[in-house]
């Protein structure tokens, strides 16, 4: 997958960190200190469709050129997460119990075109 740079326009992963202290949640969330709420953004023109992340090989690049030249209706595809992992939380619930849980698929590790 590709991480978004300053002026990325193609499909990439945008990092976004939520600091629990900044949102006033540090009193009830014991660990961790924040949440990497990354998300996918950018364009997925037809010739990029179906390629997770950017073309990395010559073969893929040629395939892309063929697709781009094809007369098929140019319908863009979507930039979506291709790898995600759980968010492990340790927190106080409203009865002051301490709860530990792993919320699945909360952190986006990489993006790609459908």
């Amino acid at each position, binding site marked *: 997958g590709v991480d978004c740079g300053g002026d990325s326009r193609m499909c990439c992963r945008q990092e976004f960190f939520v600091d629990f202290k900044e949102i006033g949640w540090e009193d009830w969330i014991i660990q961790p200190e924040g949440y990497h709420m990354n998300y996918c953004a950018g364009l997925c023109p037809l010739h990029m469709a179906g390629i997770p992340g950017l073309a990395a090989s010559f073969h893929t690049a040629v395939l892309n050129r063929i697709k781009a030249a094809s007369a098929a209706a140019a319908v*863009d595809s979507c930039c979506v997460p291709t790898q995600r992992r759980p968010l492990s939380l340790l927190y106080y619930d409203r*009865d*002051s119990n301490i709860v*530990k849980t792993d919320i699945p698929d909360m952190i986006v590790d990489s993006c790609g075109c459908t």
Partner: protein
Amino acid sequence: AAKGTWCPACGVAALAPGIQRDALLALAKQSILAKLHMPARPNIPQPPSRGTLLTALRRMRAQRSDTAAFPGMLQDGHIPHLHPGMGLQEYEILSFAESGSSTSRRVHLHFRFSRELAGSTKILQATLYLFWAAPSPQPVTIRLLQPDPVGLNMTVASETRLEVRKSGWTTLDVGAAVQSLFRQEIPRLTVELEVPEDWESPFPSDHSDSHWPFVVAQAQARTPHHVHRR
């Protein structure tokens, strides 16, 4: 999309950076609360003291050899993952006792569980940890009480008689009692400890940090019920 242009995928004008950040923070809060089945962030009445917490973690580590989630949690700032049970979200809950009515021979302890959690999970196992300050062996009766369906009286869910031989921690499996509580309106477990007449109470009178009773429960998200229509 670049500032000021239209987002090609969703056809909405790109948000100004400040507004976009606020929108993402609001989305993060909403997403975490929804996954924890919480209507809003909890207000913490009184978190357990650090001494109570650390004693409980040491006790649990001593009791269980597996890589339980809790004991590792405060050690190195790393939170070990729970055992992935078939991909369903799992929870480990540490609940400290609240003191109830007590006499010289009888002590009541209350353990509360949140309704959101009780409504969306099933208990895999639950263990009660008790500390005795008994200079000599003596009999003790432990009753697990729970509100009757109407909620007016307490009924005995189970009764265990045991011989306390010396001072120290002991554990009792309360999984079945907590599981049945999780189906109640008020998921609260009451534990009654009683000694026979003329026996000295083995319950630590000071109930200091290092002897506070607690329950550790493992729970797993309930799979959503599929209703099949014929």
